[in-house]
């Protein structure tokens, strides 16, 4: 089998202290890959840090949210002809040693998109806080019900995509709550989605963008956003 070109998309917003380590960890894997950090209008030295660590950096002129940032990565992948893209969040939560496992089903053309799940056996590592876990399980049931996929970790941002999905997402990627919503988009275009067991870590520095107190409000918003996907019309030319 010929070696595919793999693009690792790392969205990062004010991740000084995390992003360099993430990039170094990825680069230390012996895989033929390019690391693209999408600096989502950070005010700190995220871009510089990522560049020094050896990543290619796209700096967005202002903050457009993680969805838009990841989508920029897909657009880059299309432009440069990458056949596989992997999303790894810039906050250091994802254990990149699972990257190979994540890509494998895509390489074998078993599925079009894989999601790294921290809730699948055999792993019992870090699984987020109690309140958040409730939310995650709720969305897992909701999305599994709506899509027919077996999803346990819909908010995981550790994912791999093949060319077909990259093409769709480069043109149409949800900006509001991209992780759960993009599974809906994949279903919408009849793509094969599968979860792969991975381990995650606690955030090493900085704060997650989801606050505890707002959890219920957040859940309502995400649920409506997920359901809102059901009324969307198919866009011509997205599916190839």
């Amino acid at each position, binding site marked *: 089998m010929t070696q595919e070109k793999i693009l690792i998309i790392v969205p990062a917003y004010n991740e000084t202290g995390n992003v360099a380590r993430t990039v170094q960890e990825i680069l230390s894997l012996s895989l033929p890959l390019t690391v693209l950090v999408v600096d989502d209008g950070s005010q700190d030295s995220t871009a510089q840090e990522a560049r020094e660590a050896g990543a290619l950096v796209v*700096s967005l*002129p202002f903050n457009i949210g993680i969805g838009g940032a990841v989508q920029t990565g897909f657009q880059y992948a299309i432009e440069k002809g990458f056949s596989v893209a992997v999303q790894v969040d810039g906050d250091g939560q994802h254990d990149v040693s699972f990257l190979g496992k994540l890509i494998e089903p895509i390489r074998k053309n078993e599925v079009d998109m894989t999601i790294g799940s921290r809730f699948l056996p055999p792993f019992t590592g870090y699984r987020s806080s109690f309140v958040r876990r409730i939310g995650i399980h709720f969305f897992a049931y909701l999305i599994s019900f709506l899509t027919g996929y077996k999803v346990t970790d819909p908010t995981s941002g550790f994912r791999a995509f093949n060319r077909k999905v990259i093409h769709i997402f480069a043109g149409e990627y949800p900006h509001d709550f991209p992780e759960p919503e993009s599974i809906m988009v994949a279903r919408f275009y009849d793509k094969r989605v599968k979860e792969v067991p991975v381990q995650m870590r606690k955030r090493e520095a900085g704060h997650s963008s989801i606050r505890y107190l707002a959890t219920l409000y957040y859940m309502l918003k995400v649920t409506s956003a997920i359901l809102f996907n059901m009324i969307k019309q198919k866009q011509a030319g997205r599916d190839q």
Partner: protein
Amino acid sequence: MTIKILTGFLAVAILVLVVELGRRRKLTFKYAIGWILISLLGLLFDVFDQLLSWTSALLGFTLPSNFIFFTLICFFIFLSLFLTIFLCQQNNRNDTMAQKIGLLEVEINELKQKKS
């Protein structure tokens, strides 16, 4: 009679304001024209108020004032809906532009490096 003067004054004030904003290039024709037409319409109803009574009676309103309130509420509901659509479109364009700028910057840097 005083109410007629008051509303007439209001319509003229809007008209003058919009025209002045256009003159100062704060409003383009595309956005000014609607307001100009509306203020002219208000002026028309103000001067010929029988027209107002006639229209509201024709549509089945007991009081012309109810007709005015109904029309204005409808107008503002649709206006805000259209403004939201416009806002959403601008927001999408803004994001697309930011992405494009970011990607072009990478491309430029690559070209510069190749050159040197």
